[in-house]
Protein backbone atom coordinates (compact mmCIF):
# COMPACT_ATOMS: atom_id res chain seq x y z
CA UNK A 1 0.00 0.00 0.00
CA UNK A 2 2.78 2.34 0.88
CA UNK A 3 4.56 2.02 -2.44
CA UNK A 4 1.70 2.93 -4.71
CA UNK A 5 2.50 5.93 -6.80
CA UNK A 6 0.62 9.12 -7.31
CA UNK A 7 -1.24 8.06 -10.42
CA UNK A 8 -2.46 4.84 -8.86
CA UNK A 9 -3.69 6.84 -5.91
CA UNK A 10 -5.58 9.26 -8.09
CA UNK A 11 -7.27 6.39 -9.88
CA UNK A 12 -8.27 4.89 -6.56
CA UNK A 13 -9.71 8.15 -5.34
CA UNK A 14 -11.76 8.46 -8.50
CA UNK A 15 -13.34 5.15 -7.65
CA UNK A 16 -13.81 6.11 -4.02
CA UNK A 17 -14.15 9.87 -3.60
CA UNK A 18 -14.66 9.49 0.15
CA UNK A 19 -11.14 8.10 0.49
CA UNK A 20 -9.78 11.05 -1.42
CA UNK A 21 -11.65 13.44 0.82
CA UNK A 22 -10.39 11.75 3.99
CA UNK A 23 -6.83 11.80 2.67
CA UNK A 24 -7.17 15.49 1.93
CA UNK A 25 -8.56 16.18 5.42
CA UNK A 26 -5.73 14.47 7.28
CA UNK A 27 -3.14 16.26 5.17
CA UNK A 28 -4.80 19.63 5.77
CA UNK A 29 -4.94 19.00 9.53
CA UNK A 30 -1.29 18.06 9.76
CA UNK A 31 -0.46 21.08 7.65
CA UNK A 32 -2.44 23.37 9.97
CA UNK A 33 -0.63 22.08 13.06
CA UNK A 34 2.80 22.67 11.53
CA UNK A 35 1.86 25.92 9.82
CA UNK A 36 0.64 27.44 13.09
CA UNK A 37 3.91 26.53 14.79
CA UNK A 38 6.08 27.86 11.98
CA UNK A 39 4.04 31.05 11.71
CA UNK A 40 4.28 31.63 15.47
CA UNK A 41 8.04 31.13 15.51
CA UNK A 42 8.68 33.29 12.45
CA UNK A 43 6.33 36.02 13.67
CA UNK A 44 7.97 36.25 17.09
CA UNK A 45 11.50 36.09 15.69
CA UNK A 46 10.79 38.56 12.88
CA UNK A 47 9.27 41.20 15.14
CA UNK A 48 11.36 40.40 18.18
CA UNK A 49 14.94 40.13 16.98
CA UNK A 50 15.24 43.83 15.99
CA UNK A 51 14.18 44.68 19.55
CA UNK A 52 17.01 42.70 21.09
CA UNK A 53 19.29 45.67 20.51
CA UNK A 54 17.22 48.07 22.62
CA UNK A 55 19.57 49.99 24.91
CA UNK A 56 20.06 48.44 28.32
CA UNK A 57 17.91 45.40 27.60
CA UNK A 58 20.62 43.18 29.02
CA UNK A 59 21.96 45.58 31.64
CA UNK A 60 22.85 44.02 34.98
CA UNK A 61 20.58 46.37 36.91
CA UNK A 62 16.85 46.65 36.26
CA UNK A 63 15.16 50.04 36.29
CA UNK A 64 11.95 51.35 34.77
CA UNK A 65 13.97 53.00 31.99
CA UNK A 66 15.71 49.98 30.57
CA UNK A 67 13.40 47.22 31.95
CA UNK A 68 16.40 44.92 31.67
CA UNK A 69 15.70 41.22 31.46
CA UNK A 70 19.13 40.25 32.77
CA UNK A 71 18.10 39.85 36.45
CA UNK A 72 15.14 37.77 35.28
CA UNK A 73 17.45 35.53 33.24
CA UNK A 74 19.72 35.00 36.25
CA UNK A 75 16.69 34.34 38.45
CA UNK A 76 15.39 31.80 35.97
CA UNK A 77 18.67 29.89 36.21
CA UNK A 78 18.61 30.01 40.02
CA UNK A 79 14.96 28.97 40.15
CA UNK A 80 15.58 26.09 37.75
CA UNK A 81 18.59 24.85 39.72
CA UNK A 82 16.73 25.00 43.04
CA UNK A 83 13.61 23.24 41.76
CA UNK A 84 15.66 20.54 40.07
CA UNK A 85 17.76 20.04 43.20
CA UNK A 86 14.57 19.14 45.03
CA UNK A 87 12.56 17.36 42.37
CA UNK A 88 15.23 15.26 40.61
CA UNK A 89 16.40 13.17 43.62
CA UNK A 90 12.83 12.68 44.82
CA UNK A 91 11.56 11.81 41.36
CA UNK A 92 14.40 9.44 40.55
CA UNK A 93 14.21 7.73 43.95
CA UNK A 94 10.43 7.27 43.66
CA UNK A 95 10.85 5.78 40.22
CA UNK A 96 13.55 3.43 41.57
CA UNK A 97 11.15 2.30 44.26
CA UNK A 98 8.31 1.78 41.78
CA UNK A 99 10.39 -0.16 39.26
CA UNK A 100 13.12 -1.94 41.25
CA UNK A 101 11.69 -2.51 44.72
CA UNK A 102 7.90 -2.59 44.79
CA UNK A 103 6.23 -5.93 44.26
CA UNK A 104 3.47 -6.41 41.74
CA UNK A 105 0.02 -5.31 42.89
CA UNK A 106 1.50 -3.32 45.77
CA UNK A 107 -1.18 -0.96 47.14
CA UNK A 108 1.31 1.85 47.75
CA UNK A 109 2.39 1.71 44.12
CA UNK A 110 -1.18 2.13 42.92
CA UNK A 111 -1.66 5.11 45.21
CA UNK A 112 1.62 6.68 44.06
CA UNK A 113 0.59 6.26 40.43
CA UNK A 114 -2.83 7.79 40.99
CA UNK A 115 -1.49 10.75 42.93
CA UNK A 116 1.30 11.37 40.41
CA UNK A 117 -1.31 11.37 37.65
CA UNK A 118 -3.39 13.81 39.66
CA UNK A 119 -0.40 16.09 40.18
CA UNK A 120 0.37 16.18 36.49
CA UNK A 121 -3.19 17.28 35.72
CA UNK A 122 -3.36 20.19 38.17
CA UNK A 123 -3.22 23.55 36.35
CA UNK A 124 -0.35 25.83 37.24
CA UNK A 125 -2.61 28.56 38.62
CA UNK A 126 -3.95 26.08 41.20
CA UNK A 127 -0.34 25.26 42.15
CA UNK A 128 0.27 28.96 42.45
CA UNK A 129 -2.62 29.52 44.82
CA UNK A 130 -1.71 26.44 46.82
CA UNK A 131 1.82 27.83 47.23
CA UNK A 132 0.33 31.20 48.15
CA UNK A 133 -1.92 29.71 50.85
CA UNK A 134 0.84 27.51 52.27
CA UNK A 135 3.92 29.74 52.09
CA UNK A 136 2.64 33.29 51.99
CA UNK A 137 -0.42 33.06 54.25
CA UNK A 138 0.20 30.11 56.56
CA UNK A 139 3.97 30.22 56.98
CA UNK A 140 4.22 34.03 56.62
CA UNK A 141 7.24 33.76 54.33
CA UNK A 142 5.93 36.36 51.92
CA UNK A 143 6.86 36.12 48.25
CA UNK A 144 10.13 34.20 48.19
CA UNK A 145 12.44 32.37 45.86
CA UNK A 146 12.13 29.26 48.01
CA UNK A 147 8.30 29.22 47.90
CA UNK A 148 8.43 29.41 44.13
CA UNK A 149 11.06 26.69 43.85
CA UNK A 150 9.17 24.27 46.12
CA UNK A 151 5.92 24.88 44.21
CA UNK A 152 7.68 24.21 40.91
CA UNK A 153 9.41 21.14 42.32
CA UNK A 154 6.03 19.58 43.13
CA UNK A 155 4.82 20.55 39.70
CA UNK A 156 7.62 18.82 37.78
CA UNK A 157 7.85 15.81 40.11
CA UNK A 158 5.38 13.65 38.15
CA UNK A 159 7.18 14.42 34.87
CA UNK A 160 10.55 13.31 36.27
CA UNK A 161 9.00 10.25 37.90
CA UNK A 162 7.35 9.14 34.68
CA UNK A 163 10.35 9.62 32.41
CA UNK A 164 12.70 7.95 34.92
CA UNK A 165 10.29 5.05 35.31
CA UNK A 166 10.20 4.56 31.54
CA UNK A 167 13.98 4.74 31.36
CA UNK A 168 14.39 2.17 34.15
CA UNK A 169 11.86 -0.21 32.64
CA UNK A 170 13.73 0.00 29.34
CA UNK A 171 16.90 -1.42 30.96
CA UNK A 172 16.94 -5.12 30.03
CA UNK A 173 16.42 -7.58 32.89
CA UNK A 174 19.54 -9.46 31.84
CA UNK A 175 21.60 -6.51 33.19
CA UNK A 176 20.08 -6.98 36.62
CA UNK A 177 20.33 -10.77 36.50
CA UNK A 178 23.98 -10.54 35.50
CA UNK A 179 24.71 -8.23 38.40
CA UNK A 180 22.84 -10.41 40.89
CA UNK A 181 24.60 -13.45 39.49
CA UNK A 182 27.97 -11.86 40.25
CA UNK A 183 26.87 -11.47 43.86
CA UNK A 184 25.95 -7.79 43.92
CA UNK A 185 23.14 -6.71 46.18
CA UNK A 186 20.03 -4.88 45.01
CA UNK A 187 21.34 -1.45 46.00
CA UNK A 188 24.66 -1.91 44.20
CA UNK A 189 22.83 -3.26 41.15
CA UNK A 190 20.57 -0.20 41.07
CA UNK A 191 23.36 2.37 41.40
CA UNK A 192 26.10 0.63 39.42
CA UNK A 193 24.19 -1.15 36.67
CA UNK A 194 20.64 0.04 36.21
CA UNK A 195 20.92 3.79 36.80
CA UNK A 196 23.96 4.35 34.54
CA UNK A 197 22.23 2.69 31.60
CA UNK A 198 19.08 4.73 32.26
CA UNK A 199 20.86 8.08 32.41
CA UNK A 200 20.00 9.33 28.90
CA UNK A 201 16.29 8.68 29.46
CA UNK A 202 16.35 10.38 32.84
CA UNK A 203 18.28 13.30 31.38
CA UNK A 204 15.75 13.74 28.58
CA UNK A 205 13.04 13.99 31.24
CA UNK A 206 15.03 16.48 33.30
CA UNK A 207 15.57 18.65 30.25
CA UNK A 208 11.83 18.65 29.55
CA UNK A 209 11.29 19.66 33.17
CA UNK A 210 13.67 22.59 32.68
CA UNK A 211 11.47 23.65 29.79
CA UNK A 212 8.41 23.57 32.04
CA UNK A 213 10.16 25.67 34.70
CA UNK A 214 11.42 28.25 32.22
CA UNK A 215 7.98 28.64 30.69
CA UNK A 216 6.06 28.77 33.94
CA UNK A 217 4.45 31.99 35.04
CA UNK A 218 1.06 31.40 36.69
CA UNK A 219 2.51 29.27 39.49
CA UNK A 220 5.21 31.81 40.30
CA UNK A 221 3.44 35.17 40.39
CA UNK A 222 1.80 34.44 43.74
CA UNK A 223 4.64 32.42 45.27
CA UNK A 224 7.92 34.01 44.15
CA UNK A 225 6.46 37.39 43.31
CA UNK A 226 7.61 39.80 40.61
CA UNK A 227 10.57 41.64 42.09
CA UNK A 228 13.00 42.30 39.20
CA UNK A 229 16.28 42.00 41.12
CA UNK A 230 18.66 39.14 41.70
CA UNK A 231 17.78 37.76 45.15
CA UNK A 232 20.33 37.89 47.95
CA UNK A 233 18.74 35.02 49.89
CA UNK A 234 16.28 32.17 49.54
CA UNK A 235 13.69 34.38 51.19
CA UNK A 236 13.78 37.25 48.72
CA UNK A 237 11.20 37.86 46.03
CA UNK A 238 12.27 37.24 42.43
CA UNK A 239 10.89 37.18 38.92
CA UNK A 240 11.79 34.64 36.28
CA UNK A 241 11.85 35.40 32.57
CA UNK A 242 8.26 34.28 31.93
CA UNK A 243 7.02 36.31 34.89
CA UNK A 244 9.06 39.24 33.56
CA UNK A 245 7.22 38.95 30.29
CA UNK A 246 3.90 38.82 32.12
CA UNK A 247 4.84 41.97 34.05
CA UNK A 248 5.84 43.78 30.85
CA UNK A 249 2.57 42.82 29.20
CA UNK A 250 0.38 43.84 32.11
CA UNK A 251 2.04 47.21 32.35
CA UNK A 252 1.12 47.65 28.71
CA UNK A 253 3.93 50.07 27.89
CA UNK A 254 6.68 47.69 26.88
CA UNK A 255 5.50 45.83 23.79
CA UNK A 256 8.96 45.99 22.19
CA UNK A 257 10.64 44.60 25.28
CA UNK A 258 7.94 41.93 25.53
CA UNK A 259 8.75 40.91 21.96
CA UNK A 260 12.42 40.68 22.82
CA UNK A 261 11.66 38.59 25.91
CA UNK A 262 9.44 36.32 23.82
CA UNK A 263 12.37 35.77 21.44
CA UNK A 264 14.67 34.75 24.29
CA UNK A 265 12.03 32.43 25.78
CA UNK A 266 11.27 30.88 22.41
CA UNK A 267 14.92 30.30 21.57
CA UNK A 268 15.52 28.71 24.98
CA UNK A 269 12.49 26.43 24.57
CA UNK A 270 13.47 25.38 21.05
CA UNK A 271 17.00 24.65 22.23
CA UNK A 272 15.72 22.66 25.22
CA UNK A 273 13.35 20.61 23.08
CA UNK A 274 16.05 19.86 20.55
CA UNK A 275 18.47 18.87 23.30
CA UNK A 276 15.92 16.56 24.92
CA UNK A 277 15.18 14.93 21.58
CA UNK A 278 18.87 14.53 20.87
CA UNK A 279 19.58 12.92 24.27
CA UNK A 280 16.59 10.60 23.93
CA UNK A 281 17.77 9.57 20.47
CA UNK A 282 21.17 8.68 21.86
CA UNK A 283 19.36 6.42 24.27
CA UNK A 284 17.66 4.68 21.37
CA UNK A 285 20.87 4.12 19.40
CA UNK A 286 22.86 2.93 22.41
CA UNK A 287 20.60 -0.06 22.88
Amino acid at each position, binding site marked *: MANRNFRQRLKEYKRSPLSGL*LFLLVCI*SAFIAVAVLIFLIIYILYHGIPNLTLPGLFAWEYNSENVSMMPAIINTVIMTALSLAMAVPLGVFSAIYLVEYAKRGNRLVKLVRITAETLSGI*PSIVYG*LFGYVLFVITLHWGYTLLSGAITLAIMILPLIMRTTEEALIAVPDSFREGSFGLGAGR*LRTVFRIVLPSAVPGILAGVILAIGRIV*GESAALIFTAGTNPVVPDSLFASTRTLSVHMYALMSEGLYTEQAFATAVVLLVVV*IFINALSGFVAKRLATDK
Partner: protein
Amino acid sequence: MKKYSETAMKYIFMASATVSIIAVVVICVFLFSKGFPTIAEIGVFNFLGGTVWKPLEGHFGIFPMIVGSIYVTAGAIILGVPIGILCAVFMARFCPPKLYKILKPAVDLLAGIPSIVYGFFALMVIVPVMQDIFGGSGKGILTASILLAIMILPTIIGVAESALRAVPESYYEGSLALGATHERSVFFTLLPAAKSGILAGVILGIGRAIGETMAVVYIAGNQPILPDSILSGVRTMTANIVLEMGYAADGIHRNALIATAVVLFVFILIINLSFSLLRRRND
Protein backbone atom coordinates in the same frame (compact mmCIF):
# COMPACT_ATOMS: atom_id res chain seq x y z
CA MET B 1 26.82 -3.32 57.80
CA LYS B 2 26.06 -3.86 54.14
CA LYS B 3 22.68 -5.36 54.96
CA TYR B 4 21.94 -2.28 56.99
CA SER B 5 22.52 0.18 54.16
CA GLU B 6 20.43 -1.99 51.83
CA THR B 7 17.36 -1.74 54.04
CA ALA B 8 18.00 1.91 54.88
CA MET B 9 18.09 2.82 51.18
CA LYS B 10 15.01 0.78 50.51
CA TYR B 11 13.09 2.87 52.99
CA ILE B 12 14.56 6.09 51.59
CA PHE B 13 13.29 5.09 48.12
CA MET B 14 9.93 4.22 49.62
CA ALA B 15 9.75 7.53 51.47
CA SER B 16 10.50 9.41 48.23
CA ALA B 17 7.71 7.54 46.52
CA THR B 18 5.25 8.71 49.15
CA VAL B 19 6.11 12.36 48.46
CA SER B 20 3.62 12.59 45.62
CA ILE B 21 0.91 11.19 47.89
CA ILE B 22 1.83 13.70 50.58
CA ALA B 23 1.87 16.51 48.01
CA VAL B 24 -1.66 15.75 46.83
CA VAL B 25 -2.92 15.52 50.42
CA VAL B 26 -1.22 18.80 51.42
CA ILE B 27 -2.55 20.61 48.34
CA CYS B 28 -6.08 19.39 49.05
CA VAL B 29 -5.90 20.22 52.75
CA PHE B 30 -4.58 23.75 52.32
CA LEU B 31 -6.80 24.73 49.41
CA PHE B 32 -9.95 23.16 50.83
CA SER B 33 -9.38 24.49 54.34
CA LYS B 34 -9.24 28.03 52.91
CA GLY B 35 -11.84 27.58 50.22
CA PHE B 36 -14.71 25.68 51.80
CA PRO B 37 -15.21 28.02 54.80
CA THR B 38 -15.26 30.96 52.39
CA ILE B 39 -17.81 29.27 50.16
CA ALA B 40 -19.90 28.51 53.26
CA GLU B 41 -19.59 32.11 54.40
CA ILE B 42 -20.72 33.53 51.07
CA GLY B 43 -23.29 30.76 50.72
CA VAL B 44 -22.91 27.88 48.29
CA PHE B 45 -25.72 29.07 46.09
CA ASN B 46 -24.68 32.73 46.16
CA PHE B 47 -21.11 31.78 45.26
CA LEU B 48 -21.62 29.13 42.60
CA GLY B 49 -24.97 30.42 41.29
CA GLY B 50 -24.60 34.16 41.77
CA THR B 51 -24.35 36.11 38.52
CA VAL B 52 -22.88 39.30 39.97
CA TRP B 53 -19.19 39.63 40.78
CA LYS B 54 -18.57 42.96 42.49
CA PRO B 55 -16.09 42.27 45.26
CA LEU B 56 -16.08 45.83 46.52
CA GLU B 57 -19.83 45.75 47.03
CA GLY B 58 -19.79 42.31 48.57
CA HIS B 59 -21.16 40.37 45.58
CA PHE B 60 -19.20 37.18 44.99
CA GLY B 61 -21.03 35.22 42.31
CA ILE B 62 -18.71 33.19 40.09
CA PHE B 63 -21.40 31.70 37.86
CA PRO B 64 -20.35 33.91 34.91
CA MET B 65 -16.77 32.68 35.31
CA ILE B 66 -17.81 29.04 35.43
CA VAL B 67 -19.87 29.57 32.28
CA GLY B 68 -16.95 31.48 30.72
CA SER B 69 -14.51 28.65 31.40
CA ILE B 70 -16.93 26.07 30.02
CA TYR B 71 -17.69 28.09 26.85
CA VAL B 72 -14.04 28.76 26.10
CA THR B 73 -13.12 25.12 26.72
CA ALA B 74 -16.01 23.89 24.61
CA GLY B 75 -14.92 26.17 21.78
CA ALA B 76 -11.36 24.88 22.03
CA ILE B 77 -12.62 21.28 21.91
CA ILE B 78 -14.88 21.92 18.90
CA LEU B 79 -12.03 23.52 16.96
CA GLY B 80 -9.08 21.52 18.27
CA VAL B 81 -10.34 17.95 18.51
CA PRO B 82 -11.10 17.31 14.81
CA ILE B 83 -7.77 18.80 13.74
CA GLY B 84 -5.93 16.96 16.51
CA ILE B 85 -7.43 13.57 15.70
CA LEU B 86 -6.94 13.97 11.96
CA CYS B 87 -3.36 15.05 12.55
CA ALA B 88 -2.81 11.99 14.76
CA VAL B 89 -4.25 9.79 12.00
CA PHE B 90 -1.85 11.40 9.56
CA MET B 91 1.10 10.81 11.84
CA ALA B 92 0.19 7.23 12.66
CA ARG B 93 -0.90 6.03 9.24
CA PHE B 94 -0.18 8.43 6.38
CA CYS B 95 3.08 10.08 7.22
CA PRO B 96 6.24 8.99 5.38
CA PRO B 97 9.01 8.27 7.93
CA LYS B 98 11.09 11.21 6.73
CA LEU B 99 8.26 13.67 7.30
CA TYR B 100 7.52 12.09 10.67
CA LYS B 101 11.00 13.02 11.83
CA ILE B 102 10.04 16.67 11.35
CA LEU B 103 6.41 16.44 12.41
CA LYS B 104 6.92 14.74 15.75
CA PRO B 105 9.44 17.30 17.12
CA ALA B 106 7.21 20.07 15.77
CA VAL B 107 4.25 18.79 17.77
CA ASP B 108 6.47 18.41 20.84
CA LEU B 109 7.65 21.98 20.41
CA LEU B 110 4.04 23.14 20.19
CA ALA B 111 3.61 21.62 23.65
CA GLY B 112 6.78 23.26 24.95
CA ILE B 113 6.08 26.88 24.05
CA PRO B 114 5.28 28.83 27.26
CA SER B 115 1.67 29.87 27.65
CA ILE B 116 2.69 33.49 28.16
CA VAL B 117 4.25 33.46 24.68
CA TYR B 118 1.04 31.98 23.26
CA GLY B 119 -0.94 34.72 24.97
CA PHE B 120 1.32 37.40 23.57
CA PHE B 121 1.15 35.91 20.09
CA ALA B 122 -2.65 35.81 20.25
CA LEU B 123 -2.81 39.38 21.49
CA MET B 124 -0.60 40.52 18.62
CA VAL B 125 -2.00 38.37 15.83
CA ILE B 126 -5.40 36.80 16.51
CA VAL B 127 -6.97 39.79 18.29
CA PRO B 128 -6.31 42.30 15.45
CA VAL B 129 -7.58 39.78 12.88
CA MET B 130 -10.79 39.34 14.87
CA GLN B 131 -11.12 43.11 15.13
CA ASP B 132 -10.89 43.40 11.36
CA ILE B 133 -13.40 40.66 10.71
CA PHE B 134 -16.01 41.23 13.40
CA GLY B 135 -15.27 44.70 14.73
CA GLY B 136 -15.32 45.40 18.44
CA SER B 137 -12.42 44.68 20.73
CA GLY B 138 -11.45 41.41 19.09
CA LYS B 139 -11.25 39.78 22.49
CA GLY B 140 -13.77 37.19 23.48
CA ILE B 141 -14.88 33.57 23.48
CA LEU B 142 -13.98 32.90 19.86
CA THR B 143 -10.49 34.39 20.13
CA ALA B 144 -9.74 32.46 23.31
CA SER B 145 -11.17 29.26 21.82
CA ILE B 146 -8.96 29.51 18.75
CA LEU B 147 -5.81 29.95 20.84
CA LEU B 148 -6.74 27.19 23.29
CA ALA B 149 -7.49 24.88 20.37
CA ILE B 150 -3.90 25.41 19.21
CA MET B 151 -2.56 24.86 22.70
CA ILE B 152 -4.39 21.56 23.30
CA LEU B 153 -3.42 20.17 19.88
CA PRO B 154 -0.21 18.46 21.08
CA THR B 155 -2.02 16.81 24.00
CA ILE B 156 -4.73 15.38 21.78
CA ILE B 157 -2.33 14.41 19.00
CA GLY B 158 0.01 12.62 21.43
CA VAL B 159 -2.64 10.53 23.14
CA ALA B 160 -4.65 9.83 19.98
CA GLU B 161 -1.54 8.78 18.06
CA SER B 162 -0.47 6.25 20.65
CA ALA B 163 -4.07 4.97 20.87
CA LEU B 164 -4.09 4.47 17.09
CA ARG B 165 -0.73 2.71 17.15
CA ALA B 166 -1.96 0.36 19.89
CA VAL B 167 -4.68 -1.10 17.63
CA PRO B 168 -3.62 -4.56 16.38
CA GLU B 169 -2.37 -4.52 12.79
CA SER B 170 -4.73 -7.40 11.94
CA TYR B 171 -7.73 -5.03 12.08
CA TYR B 172 -6.24 -2.94 9.32
CA GLU B 173 -5.11 -5.91 7.26
CA GLY B 174 -8.50 -7.55 7.60
CA SER B 175 -10.19 -4.44 6.29
CA LEU B 176 -7.76 -4.18 3.35
CA ALA B 177 -8.36 -7.83 2.53
CA LEU B 178 -12.08 -7.12 2.29
CA GLY B 179 -11.28 -4.59 -0.44
CA ALA B 180 -11.46 -1.32 1.50
CA THR B 181 -9.06 1.45 0.56
CA HIS B 182 -6.27 2.53 2.90
CA GLU B 183 -8.27 5.57 4.00
CA ARG B 184 -11.45 3.62 4.64
CA SER B 185 -9.56 0.98 6.59
CA VAL B 186 -7.97 3.61 8.79
CA PHE B 187 -11.13 5.62 9.38
CA PHE B 188 -13.69 2.84 9.69
CA THR B 189 -11.74 0.12 11.49
CA LEU B 190 -8.73 1.64 13.25
CA LEU B 191 -10.40 4.84 14.43
CA PRO B 192 -13.43 3.14 16.05
CA ALA B 193 -11.10 0.61 17.69
CA ALA B 194 -9.01 3.40 19.19
CA LYS B 195 -12.11 5.32 20.25
CA SER B 196 -11.73 5.15 24.02
CA GLY B 197 -8.04 6.02 23.90
CA ILE B 198 -8.82 9.03 21.75
CA LEU B 199 -11.59 10.04 24.14
CA ALA B 200 -9.04 9.92 26.98
CA GLY B 201 -6.88 12.35 24.99
CA VAL B 202 -9.85 14.66 24.53
CA ILE B 203 -10.54 14.62 28.27
CA LEU B 204 -6.90 15.45 28.95
CA GLY B 205 -7.24 18.31 26.47
CA ILE B 206 -10.32 19.59 28.33
CA GLY B 207 -8.27 19.64 31.52
CA ARG B 208 -5.51 21.62 29.82
CA ALA B 209 -7.93 24.12 28.31
CA ILE B 210 -9.95 24.77 31.45
CA GLY B 211 -6.81 25.25 33.54
CA GLU B 212 -5.02 27.54 31.11
CA THR B 213 -4.43 30.95 32.59
CA MET B 214 -1.78 33.21 31.16
CA ALA B 215 -2.73 32.75 27.54
CA VAL B 216 -6.40 33.42 28.17
CA VAL B 217 -6.14 36.42 30.41
CA TYR B 218 -5.06 38.77 27.61
CA ILE B 219 -7.51 37.70 24.96
CA ALA B 220 -10.80 36.69 26.57
CA GLY B 221 -11.90 40.23 27.38
CA ASN B 222 -12.30 39.53 31.09
CA GLN B 223 -15.77 40.99 31.65
CA PRO B 224 -17.38 39.03 34.48
CA ILE B 225 -20.74 38.81 32.72
CA LEU B 226 -22.79 36.07 31.17
CA PRO B 227 -21.82 36.08 27.48
CA ASP B 228 -24.56 36.54 24.88
CA SER B 229 -22.60 35.61 21.76
CA ILE B 230 -19.38 33.90 20.78
CA LEU B 231 -17.79 37.30 20.25
CA SER B 232 -18.70 38.55 23.68
CA GLY B 233 -15.93 38.99 26.22
CA VAL B 234 -15.78 36.49 29.05
CA ARG B 235 -13.77 35.98 32.18
CA THR B 236 -12.65 32.47 32.99
CA MET B 237 -12.12 31.20 36.53
CA THR B 238 -8.36 31.21 35.97
CA ALA B 239 -8.37 34.79 34.68
CA ASN B 240 -10.47 35.91 37.64
CA ILE B 241 -7.73 34.73 39.98
CA VAL B 242 -4.82 36.33 38.13
CA LEU B 243 -6.60 39.62 37.51
CA GLU B 244 -7.61 40.35 41.08
CA MET B 245 -5.20 38.44 43.29
CA GLY B 246 -2.62 41.19 42.94
CA TYR B 247 -4.71 43.90 44.56
CA ALA B 248 -7.28 41.93 46.56
CA ALA B 249 -7.14 43.01 50.17
CA ASP B 250 -6.89 40.49 52.96
CA GLY B 251 -10.17 38.97 53.94
CA ILE B 252 -13.18 37.84 51.99
CA HIS B 253 -12.16 39.15 48.55
CA ARG B 254 -8.88 37.26 48.59
CA ASN B 255 -10.53 34.21 50.10
CA ALA B 256 -13.20 34.30 47.38
CA LEU B 257 -10.41 34.14 44.79
CA ILE B 258 -8.86 31.17 46.56
CA ALA B 259 -12.32 29.60 46.61
CA THR B 260 -12.47 30.17 42.83
CA ALA B 261 -9.26 28.13 42.56
CA VAL B 262 -10.91 25.43 44.71
CA VAL B 263 -13.87 25.24 42.32
CA LEU B 264 -11.43 24.98 39.40
CA PHE B 265 -9.49 22.31 41.30
CA VAL B 266 -12.67 20.26 41.84
CA PHE B 267 -13.43 20.54 38.11
CA ILE B 268 -9.92 19.27 37.37
CA LEU B 269 -10.22 16.41 39.86
CA ILE B 270 -13.44 15.27 38.17
CA ILE B 271 -11.80 15.50 34.73
CA ASN B 272 -8.72 13.60 35.97
CA LEU B 273 -10.89 10.92 37.52
CA SER B 274 -12.81 10.33 34.30
CA PHE B 275 -9.51 10.23 32.41
CA SER B 276 -7.99 7.56 34.65
CA LEU B 277 -11.23 5.54 34.73
CA LEU B 278 -11.29 5.57 30.96
CA ARG B 279 -7.65 4.55 30.74
CA ARG B 280 -8.06 1.79 33.28
CA ARG B 281 -10.94 0.41 31.22
CA ASN B 282 -8.66 0.37 28.18
CA ASP B 283 -6.02 -1.65 29.95
